[in-house]
């Protein structure tokens, strides 16, 4: 039994087309223990989904290029596994749920069949059909879908219900790791809370580790033990939940994220977005990727790429905190 369930080291991923190279992920590392929930927060285009897909080796075949790094799941080097072995892992020990429930389900396959498929694919101990269908019913109940709806098609369900089906499919084989990529973003606000609390409950019940990808700090606060803030393919800040939410020092981007949340208690005239735009991943800036938008930008920021500065469990990738600049 290994110390970490998941170990990722210095992962670099590009999307290579004939015309250009998109630097989606630029050297991230993290570890995940059993039962822990790791949150990755960042804007669209930060590289979060790419990271998630890479863990399951689901990057698009022709364009997705994993340039360097290692991914170890329960001690096994995932990048060295055969496709067949990866397929045994997917859905069984590592599962993923995606953002848009509207398009994640096969429109011409009954819901019950889609869930049963997850079970049949990993039916190593030769369960019979009856057993599988019984387990399917169990799983549906787990996510709160009435048994009489199991032979319905996806389009007959609402958005929130569809996402429950997606979750049911992912959890059918009781995986050790669940990767949730913005699972509630596409849902109505009122349903979001329901689905989220269901995910948390199931996680606790099954003792799963989870990677929660989101742009919503509120969700991070409710679900995660460890957090990383992702920008332009890097973790600009990472640490425990306390580090990120109540710590004193922060990466300017993190400050910007927190600062842009409207404060219900204080009357303001304007919102505080972070000025500027996310950098073009085909033409990343010299030095710190955040420098063009950073209110605290110094000369060195534009020239030298910042290194990680560690303060115990809290890591910040910023020249503001580095001993080199501050002596």
């Amino acid at each position: 039994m290994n110390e970490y369930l998941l170990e990722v080291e210095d992962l670099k991923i590009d999307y290579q087309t004939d015309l250009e190279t998109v630097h989606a992920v630029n050297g991230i590392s993290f570890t995940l223990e059993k039962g822990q929930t790791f949150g990755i927060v960042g804007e669209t285009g930060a590289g979060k989904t790419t990271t998630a897909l890479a863990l399951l080796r689901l990057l698009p075949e022709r364009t997705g290029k994993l340039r360097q790094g290692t991914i170890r799941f329960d001690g096994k080097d995932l990048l060295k596994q055969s496709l067949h072995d990866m397929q045994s892992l997917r859905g069984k020990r590592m599962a993923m749920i995606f953002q848009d429930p509207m398009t994640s389900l096969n429109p011409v396959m009954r819901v019950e069949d889609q869930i049963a498929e997850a079970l049949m694919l990993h039916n190593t101990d030769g369960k019979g059909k009856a057993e599988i269908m019984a387990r399917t019913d169990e799983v549906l109940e787990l996510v709160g879908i009435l048994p009489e709806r199991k032979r319905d098609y996806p389009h007959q369900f609402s958005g929130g219900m569809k996402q429950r089906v997606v979750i049911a499919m992912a959890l059918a084989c009781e995986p050790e790791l669940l990767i949730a990529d913005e699972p509630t973003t596409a849902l109505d606000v009122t349903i979001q809370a329901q689905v989220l609390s269901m995910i948390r409950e199931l996680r606790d019940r099954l003792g799963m580790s989870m990677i929660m990808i989101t742009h919503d700090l509120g969700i991070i606060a409710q679900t995660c033990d460890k957090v990383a803030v992702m920008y332009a393919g890097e973790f600009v800040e990472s640490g425990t939940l306390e580090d990120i939410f109540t710590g004193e020092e922060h990466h300017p981007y993190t400050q910007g994220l927190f600062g842009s949340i409207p404060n219900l208690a204080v009357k303001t005239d304007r919102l505080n977005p972070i000025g500027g735009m996310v950098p073009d991943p085909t033409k990343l800036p010299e030095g710190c990727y955040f420098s063009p938008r950073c209110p605290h930008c110094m000369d060195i920021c534009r020239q030298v790429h910042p290194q990680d500065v560690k303060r115990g469990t809290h890591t910040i990738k910023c020249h503001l905190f580095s001993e080199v600049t501050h002596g």
Partner: protein
Amino acid sequence: MWKYVIKRLLLIIPILLGVTILIFFVMELSPGDPASTILGAGATQEAIDMLNKELGYDRPMLTRLGSYIANVFLKGDFGNSYRSRLPVIDSIVVSIPISLRVAFFAITFAAVVGIPIGVLSAVKQYSLLDTIPTVTSLFLSALPGFWLGMMLLYLFALKLGILPSYGVETWKGFILPTISLGLPYAAQEMRFTRSSMLETIRSDYVRTARAKGAAERRVIWRHALKNALLPVITVTGTIFAAMLGGAVVTESLYSIPGLGSLLVTSIKIKDTPTVMGCTFVLAAMCSLVLLVVDLLYAVVDPRIKAKYSK
């Protein structure tokens, strides 16, 4: 569900009514009158006037239209041929089976050849198994069907002598018409199937299937294929309807005595009732084909089925 079927069936009627009126007005554009055509050049004005009156041609246009519609829809009576003076419907009925057979063989050929190659091409994208069919289909869809037919006739009938050069008395006679009519459409089927399959392979639910641990083969066969083929059903129907039009030229080329040949001949001899009858029947056949395809689609796609079951 049945409500939908009946509703769609009923919708055809106004369309066919419209088609009848359209054809009637188009034919009204042509110069001359029936009697002159029937009696020919040497006839006297008197004889012409008398025959016209007998045929009801002296009535106002709208009356003639109304009477024509009534005859067609209530009695299936398209009038009598100017040439043979016999009911048009008879010569049409005789020709329909042959035309149907030719079109049916051609569409089957197009689908059986085009669809599997399209699927293969999509699954093996970027490889030779994709490039060769794609390039070939580009050429094939640029080929005029009747030119292809002529070239095939030259090679197989005239030079090699292994296939008949005209008529469909034996099964061999169907081979060349089927290929020359079907091959350009096979290319269309292939390209459409390929693009539908490519799109499906990129969809989110296919990604979900992979994430569940399904092997690529299963992903293609169990998830992608069915979804990709649904729109292909509709396109095949559209192609079949287009084929009914293209078959006119094929029939001419191979001297096949179907509706198309009948139509062309009657145009040449100015036999207006037959022209109108053939056009109407062909349009009706097209509409029916499209209807059948729509219904088939509704049966096969659970989303549409549900929509019309309420």
